[in-house]
């Protein structure tokens, strides 16, 4: 499939307030979102992801920069002229209208003929499996159903881009899991570009084609869930996405995309590295808990190993987390999947070696 761009954001900034109180909620952000892509803006609250979404929707206008949709700069266009629809966090369904009237609202405003509207509304009701509730008031349906209506309403006018502002955050865990699959299905069936905003890293990893991780108004890294999880570009990304162990290190020899570092324990290793490292710098080595394992101290090991003692064992059902107090004073968490036949388990106080492949480690700027 040729990868054409759907929305291009070109060095967009949004500044709130004036003078010394000015805050850049979005700070020189550039990103190209491809057609038919499930693109996620991920970050903690206050990172600017919602402001960026509002700039694309047209509820806010950028202080600087361009937003290009299908070759046209839409940065100054009012929201009702943009072929972009939004699913709001609180759904924002019109309480004085029925489910069907809500879904048909966009087409009605576009002045489409009545027959076309009712056909499209039935189609959308079927798409979100809500045919039986068409005549209900929005106050008479459950939260999950409201969510579906909000989706149907936003998809009905066949927008070029669908924006989703933390749409799953109000749902309970099971419903959220269901809707994640539902959203992916809808995106595949409609072929519309989805831009999804969330602070939930798990949601982002399971649903997205690509993720942009944001912090303090800037995009720190853009990539596939794999890229983001396995090769984080910086310490914030590594920390925000999933659980991670951080080990203090010193750069000995930086290379192209990798670096040789010396850990506090004296262990040297060569691993893949993020940008901006030079010899002699303090650095952080990150290792995911599931990429390491535990061995008895007397086992013969050829891989890099750190010695310590188990300080805590936390049982999670699917797996067990071993907190290891390393000899150098740092704590390292190892996640081990639980199996039916578990021989020789580790217990609190056991001296152990933490083992990981060099490929599991990544060197980042501190």
């Amino acid at each position: 499939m040729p990868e054409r761009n759907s929305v291009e954001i070109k060095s967009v900034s949004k500044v709130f307030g004036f003078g010394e109180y000015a805050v850049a909620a979005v700070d020189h952000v550039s990103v190209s979102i491809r057609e038919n892509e499930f693109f996620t803006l991920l970050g903690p609250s206050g990172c600017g992801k919602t402001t960026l979404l509002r700039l694309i929707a047209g509820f806010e206008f950028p202080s600087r920069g361009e937003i290009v949709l299908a070759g046209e700069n839409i940065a100054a266009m009012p929201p009702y002229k943009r072929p972009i629809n939004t699913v709001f966090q609180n759904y924002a369904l019109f309480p004085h209208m029925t489910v069907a009237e809500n879904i048909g609202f966009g087409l009605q405003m576009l002045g489409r003929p009545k027959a076309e509207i009712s056909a499209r509304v039935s189609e959308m009701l079927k798409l979100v499996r809500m045919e039986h509730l068409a005549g209900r008031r929005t106050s008479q349906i459950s939260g999950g159903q409201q969510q579906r209506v909000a989706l149907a309403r936003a998809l009905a006018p066949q927008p070029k881009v669908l924006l989703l502002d933390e749409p799953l955050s109000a749902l309970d865990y099971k419903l959220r899991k269901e809707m994640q699959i539902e959203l992916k299905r809808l995106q595949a069936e409609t072929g519309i570009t989805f831009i999804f905003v969330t602070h939930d890293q798990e949601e982002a990893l399971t649903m997205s084609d690509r993720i942009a991780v944001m912090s303090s108004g800037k995009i720190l890294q853009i990539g596939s869930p794999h890229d983001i999880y396995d090769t984080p570009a910086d310490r914030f990304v590594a920390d925000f996405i999933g659980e991670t162990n951080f080990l203090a290190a010193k750069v000995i020899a930086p290379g192209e995309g990798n670096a040789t570092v010396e850990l506090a324990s004296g262990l040297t290793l060569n691993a893949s590295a993020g940008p901006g490292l030079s010899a002699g710098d303090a650095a952080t080595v990150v290792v995911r808990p599931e990429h390491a394992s535990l061995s008895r101290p007397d086992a013969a090991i050829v891989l890099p190993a750190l010695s310590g003692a188990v300080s805590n064992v936390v049982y999670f059902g699917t797996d067990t987390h071993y907190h290891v107090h390393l000899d150098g004073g740092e704590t390292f968490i190892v996640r081990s999947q639980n199996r039916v036949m578990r021989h020789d388990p580790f217990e609190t106080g056991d001296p152990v070696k933490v083992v990981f492949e060099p490929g599991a480690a990544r060197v980042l700027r501190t």
Partner: protein
Amino acid sequence: MARRFDIRRQTGFTTIAMIVFFALYLPIAVLVVFAFNAGDSLSVWEGFSLHWFERAMENGAVIDASLRSLQIAGVAAVVATIAATMAALATTRTEPYPGLTFKYAFINQPLMIPEIVTAVALLIFFSRIKIWTGYDGLAYLIVAHTAFCVPFAYLPIRARLESMDLTLERAAADLYATPWNTFRYVTLPLLWPGILAGFMLAFVISLDDVVITNFVKSGGQDTLPTYMLGQMRRAITPEMNAISAVFLLISIAIVTVFFFVNRKRA
């Protein structure tokens, strides 16, 4: 232990409440009761009769004043409600800016300036215009009533707008509704209870006004309250009670209708 803070448990609460209720409602109850007095006394009961209601109904001046009151209140309340709705939209559907508080005060000015001051000012102002134009119809009263009705209509409408979720209007704009269509299909239908409340309040306030009306009206332009005031200076008969009782009934009816309409929409 929320009970301990229950005000109904304070000593003397019931007694104080009773005294207050009596002070409020006893005079009104007495007034209504004597509207049905067969004799012409306001204090000695001489048997039940609808005689005074009939008298009031046959009194051309009463009918005249009542119709004038309704006419003025109707037009003034409609115009004031429209103005108040626009003012409420302009002061809530905007980012706060310096001077917004001043605008609130400005809109609500009639609530703060003593009515007698406004009355005198209007008397002088309108008398000039009357001389220039030669026109001395009801328009002066309608304009004056509209002006002091605006804040009464404005307050409930603004309250309703402030409690309305702004994202609904955003959602409408997102779904291709122009600002006018957003207002027509989303804001207005949701604002109706507030507008209705504002209208009824304005209507009752206009119906009830004495001071400004007395100063602004030309000869032969008595409204029901100014007519009643005029009658009080002469002989007081239970006819006044009868008119008051009907007036009270209308007010209660308006409030009741509003209550049910509002509850149904909420």
